[in-house]
Each structure stands twice: as C-alpha cells, then as structure tokens.
C-alpha cells in the first residue's frame, strides 16, 4: 500500500506537469492576445500619448483620469451608454420572453420560426447598420419612412434628428439581438417540468399566476444569463452604431465606446482614449460581477 502511495505521488506530479505542458500553448496564447493588451491599455492610460504632439509624450500619472472627470462629453457618453444599454436589454428580454411564451404554445412550425429568428443574429452588425441607414430609415426614400408616410405619420429624419436618432439605434440593436433572447428563452421553456404546471392547474391557478409564480422564477437563470450577455455586448456596441450614425448627429448617439474610438483614432489622443476604454472595461466588469452575484443570491 505504502509503495503504491509513494509510487502515486510522483506519477500525479508528472501528470500535472504533462497537463501543464499541454495547456502551456493555449495559456501563452491567451496571455499574449488578452492579458498583455489589457496590461498595455492600463499602462497607456497613465501616459500622455498624443500622436499630434509626440514631443510631450511621457508618464502622466492620473492626469487622463482627472481630465475625464471634468470632461462633459465623457459624462454625456456615459449617460448615453446607460440609456442605450438599459433600454436595449429590457426590450430584448421583454420582447424575447413574450415571443418565446407565445411560440412555445404553438406546436407546428417551431423549427422554421427558429430558423427565421436566427437570421438577424448572424448578420454582421456593420451590415445591419448600413442596411438601416441606407434602405430602411433614409428620409423620404427608406422603407420604414415610406410606411410612416403611408399611415399618415409623415416623413422623419430618423437618424439625422438628435431625439429620433437615439430611439432609432436602440430599435436597430433590439431588432438584431431580440432573437437571441427569444431562442434562449424558448429552449429554457421547453425544459421546464410539466408536472408543476399540472399541479397548479389542479389548484386552479390562473395563467398569470402560473407565469408569475412558476415560469418566471424557473426562467430566472436564463433571464440573468441573457441580461449579463446582452449588457456586456450593448456596452461595447460599436459596428452597427458606427455604420448607422457614427455617433451623431452631433453627439446624440455617441456612447462611451464610440467616444473612446473618436478620441483615440480620430483625435489621436491615445493616452486619454486608453483611459476611457479602461473605464468602460471596469464598468462592464463591475456590472457583470454584480449580476453574477445576484444570480447566485437565491
């Protein structure tokens, strides 16, 4: 027995070493492609790095972060990020859940519904942005504008009016990603145990009470996962928004991600842009962490 134990330890250690050896390339790749860029981002955020004034470049401590606190456009972009993320996620969950509940009751044609539903999700966001900008929402000539004129609501500058532009980009994001929530909820609904519903029906629980007291609590993990995934994606949304409005008109749809891009690549203030990007990363991580905690709480 003792021989076996003595023999086992070196074998386990060797196995661990071998496992590490096998993992090493993947770990190295993750380190190089993910960890190193983040470290570089953090380092850059403490630098004054401005391509148009290279003679001033150097370590700048927390200057970029103090600039951020006094930058009105940063707070405006942050508020727009909150509105954009909050409204798109709520709409996706609400519409996705409603559709899933409705479709789950239909036995015929669910496969086709899933196929159609997945189409917007597989489109590249930049294509979606251009599609809406050029074909759907163009004043006078766009398909949507044509219908609003037809029903007497008149022609509107959907992406050129500051008020309408924000609503339009929220609608575009919701259109593209609601099917994702719908598909997750449809799968989650299919896995719910039928006996609980049968017992509730025997107790004469109404449809609303069955939904409120059974379906919703059982769907909670799926809802939380959808919310977490959609929040992280909405906070870092870029391509569709950039293609549809470029953050405009003016700064009406310039969420934090687009603002960080503008500062870094159009204004060439790389250091300040890095500070904005890192701040966005921290906000995303904190929200995700809190939601994960909330998911585990009950």
């Amino acid at each position, binding site marked *: 027995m003792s021989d076996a134990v003595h023999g086992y330890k070196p074998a386990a250690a060797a196995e661990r070493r071998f496992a590490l050896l096998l993992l090493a390339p993947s770990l190295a790749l993750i380190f190089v492609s993910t960890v190193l860029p983040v470290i570089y981002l953090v380092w850059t955020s403490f630098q004054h790095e*401005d*391509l*148009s*004034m*290279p*003679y*001033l470049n150097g370590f700048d401590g927390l200057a970029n972060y103090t*600039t951020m606190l006094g930058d*009105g*456009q940063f707070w405006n972009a942050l508020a727009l990020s909150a509105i954009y993320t909050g409204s798109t996620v709520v709409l996706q969950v609400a519409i996705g859940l409603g559709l899933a509940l409705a479709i789950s009751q239909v036995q015929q044609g669910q496969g086709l519904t899933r196929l159609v539903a997945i189409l917007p999700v597989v489109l590249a966001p930049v294509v979606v942005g251009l599609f809406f*900008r050029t074909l759907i929402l*163009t*004043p*006078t000539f766009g398909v949507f504008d044509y219908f609003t004129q037809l029903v007497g609501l008149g*022609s509107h*500058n959907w*992406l*050129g*009016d*500051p008020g309408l532009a924000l609503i339009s980009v929220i609608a575009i994001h919701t259109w593209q990603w609601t099917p994702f929530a719908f598909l997750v909820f449809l799968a989650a609904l299919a896995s719910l145990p039928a006996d609980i519903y049968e017992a509730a029906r025997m107790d004469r629980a109404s449809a609303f009470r069955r939904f409120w007291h059974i379906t919703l609590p059982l769907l909670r993990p799926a809802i939380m996962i959808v919310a977490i995934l959609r929040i992280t994606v909405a906070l870092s949304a870029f391509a569709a928004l950039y293609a549809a409005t*470029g953050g*405009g*008109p*003016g*700064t*009406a749809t310039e969420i934090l991600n687009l603002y960080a891009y*503008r500062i870094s*690549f*159009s*204004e*060439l*203030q790389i250091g300040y842009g890095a500070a904005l990007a890192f701040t966005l990363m921290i906000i995303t991580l904190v929200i995700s962490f809190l939601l994960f905690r909330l998911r585990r709480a009950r």
Partner: protein
Amino acid sequence: MPSSEGGVRHAVPMIRRRSLLRSAAAASAGALALPAILESPVRGAETALAPYLEARIDWQMAKGERVHVAIIPTIFYAGWKKLASEFETLTGINVTFEEIPPGLIRNKTVLDLSSKTGTYSTHFADPMYYPLYAANDWVEPIAEYLNNPKLTDPAWYNAADLIPAWVAANSYHGKLYGIPFDGEATVQVYRTDLYSAHGLKPADTLEQYAGNAAALTDAAHRIWGAAVRGFPGPGQNMYIYPSIYLEFGGHWIDQNGKITVNGPAAEAAVEWYVNLDRKYAPPGVQNWNWPELADGFSQGVLASYIDGSSGAPVVVDPSRSHVIGKVGFARWPKGPSGRRVASIWNWGFPINKALSQRARYATWLFMVWSSCRATQERTALNPPEGTVFRVGVNRMSLLQSPGFAKLAERIGTNFLKAVSDSILHDTDPDWRPRVPQWPAVGEIMSVALQQALVGQATPKQALDGAQQRIDQVMRGGPAKP
C-alpha cells in the same frame, strides 16, 4: 498513346507526302510571320511607354518590389488604375490598390504610419495631415527624391509645372512631403435651366447665394435650392466651413499663436451654414458628403451646391445624371469680409518611411509615373476606353491647355474659368490651421458644426464647447511647436 490505350488506333491519320508538304509550307509561312505577330503587341506597349522612356532614369531599378496604395473609391480614378499595368510593364514593380472610403482613409493610414507596419507604400494623403506626419517623422521629405538625378529626370518631370498652390499645401515648414496627384477647388455648381427660369444669376456673395436658394426651394415638387456638406469629419463638413469662416472675417490662429474657433465671426459663419442647410437642403443633408451632393444634383433634386470641382464627372455622367447640358459653375461667393476662399485640396502621395530603401524607390517611381504630365493627360483628358475623364489635373500646363478647355466645354457653362480662377486667386494654403494637432481640431470642430446643424446646441454653445476642448487638446500651448 491514346490510340493504343483507347482502342482507337485507326483514328491516327496517315501521313502522306502531300499533307507533309502542306504542313511544311504552313510552318514556314508561320515562321516568317512570327516576328510580325509578336512585334505588334510589343510595339503597342512600346508606343504607350514611349513618353516615359524619354526620362533619363532607370525605371527598372526596383524591379520585383511591390507598391501597395491606399486610395478612395470613385469612378474617375478607374482610368489611372487601368493604366497601372503599363507601369508594371515599365518598371517590373507590382502595384496593388486598396480602396478605403474617404471618411476612413485618414484613420487607417495614420494607424499604419504610427505602428510602422509599412502596409501602405503610399496613399491618398489629406494635405492637412502633413504637419502630423512631419512631427512624427513618418514620411520622407520629397526633396531627397526630387533632387536625386538617379531617381528623377528634372527636365522630363518638370516639378515646376505642378500647381503651386497644391505644392504649398503639401509642404510644412518649407519642406514638401507629398506629390500632388489629383485635386480641386471648391466652386458653385448650379442648374442653368432653373436659374434662368427664375431670372437668377450665380451668386457673387454668400447673401445672394442664400437668396437664390430661397427662390429655388420648392419641397412640394422635390426641388431644394442649395446644400453644402453636413456629414461630420475633418475632411467632410470641415472641408466647407473653413471657407465660410474666413469669408466672415475669421482667423484660425490669433496673435499669440493660439487656435481660435469661437467669437462673433465664427458665430455668424455657423449661423449662415446652419441656415442654408436647414432651410434649403434636402432632408438628411446632415449625413451628406460630396458623393451624396453630386448624386442629389445629378438626380435633379438639388438646384445648386458648393463643393469640389472634381465631382464634375459624376454630375455629367450619362449613365446616372439627369441634368447633362444644364450645369453651370461659378467661384465661391464672397463673404461679408470681401474675401473669396476656395478650398485648397489635392490628394497627394507621401512616401512611407517604414519601407526599405528599395521599396521607397519603387514607391517614388510609382509617384513619378502617376504625377508626370503623360499619365495626367492620359488619365484626365484622354482616359482609357471604358473609363471616365478626370478634371483634377495636377499641372498648370494641362489646366491651361486647349485639351482641358475642350473638356471643360463638355462639362458645363464656365467650368474652366471658375476652376482656374478659384485655383489661381481664391486659394490660401492656410485656409485651415495647418498644425500637427489638426486631426483633433478638425474632429472637434466637425462635431460642433453638426451639433449646431441638428439643433443639439446653438452656434455659440457649439463653438464655445469646441474652443474649450481644443484648448484642452493644445494644453494651452501655441499651435506651432
């Protein structure tokens, strides 16, 4: 072999004396004709290359190199791209083009230059970016190439013939950083038929221009009086606004060297700009850049616009224009200060410093070939079959040539005079603040202008906000280091 394998041995023809003699005769005739057959394409190529072979340089000095060029997508560069195969024959250098939309080409090329990846050997460079390139030492001073007899035959190339205003625009602190390839001046483009019907003349002042627009706008019949670029960007709405600002008496840099974008002159200029696009331009003009303006005009919904003269091929393109024969041109209207200020614009070619010396030579040869008189004439006035003409010739001798005058007649009323007068009299290299910080200054101003245009801020609020941000970017320092 097939006969034995396929079991068709009988199919092999028998060789007879007569057929042998016939074949021999045919082969002899072919052999005699061969030099002539081979010679014709060679002679054709030689004819096409003849103007370049007059240059006393070794075109083959960088044979085998590759030149990758970032350009913007537009129909009037198709002829030049088509002729690039001749350059490849002439030099043995492989040329590839990458088309990047105007709104992105600056970002992509700056990324390439700053990361020193050497992706683009050269690119269509915005003249406003040379101070940035020079400050970072990203591109080569052109003089080293222009004054090297191994690389340039000065008599044949004749650099003095390049349009002086464009050479000035591509220079910074006295050094030339980009060779002008294609350019323009901003001019009024108007519908002669509509103007005549309303008894109007092309505007001499900004006030008259807005008045003409008011008289012509008839939204119910889908006619809008005038428009200028609304799309935000340093090369988009900030391509038009600087002329208005200077015409209203504005100055970009004050006596202390500080960039100034607000104040009464700026507010009046923005008011005029916002008023014109809001009242008299088609809906959606906030997102219109020059291609949309040219398309709107050629579709007949726009009675006039002020923009670059090089959009002319679009407005007179028979395949898409409904206004051919009804197009007139005039200089920028004068502002309240009495000045006319046209843009000073050209796409120039810089040399990427991240390249090896041999690749830089290859790039220079491509630049010489593209900007020399022969190529300019062949791509502008006599474009290859199936391509459209180009009006942004880079040489005074071509601008003032009978060939260009003939082309100008085809384009529309007063085109030649409007363009020539604008280039010669209305351009000012400092029509925008030529500082390394221009990308940030231009970007901030472009956003402020659009905020004012869409009503997100009043002109004063937008300009004061922009001034504050520009002060922050400049860190309170002077515009020029």
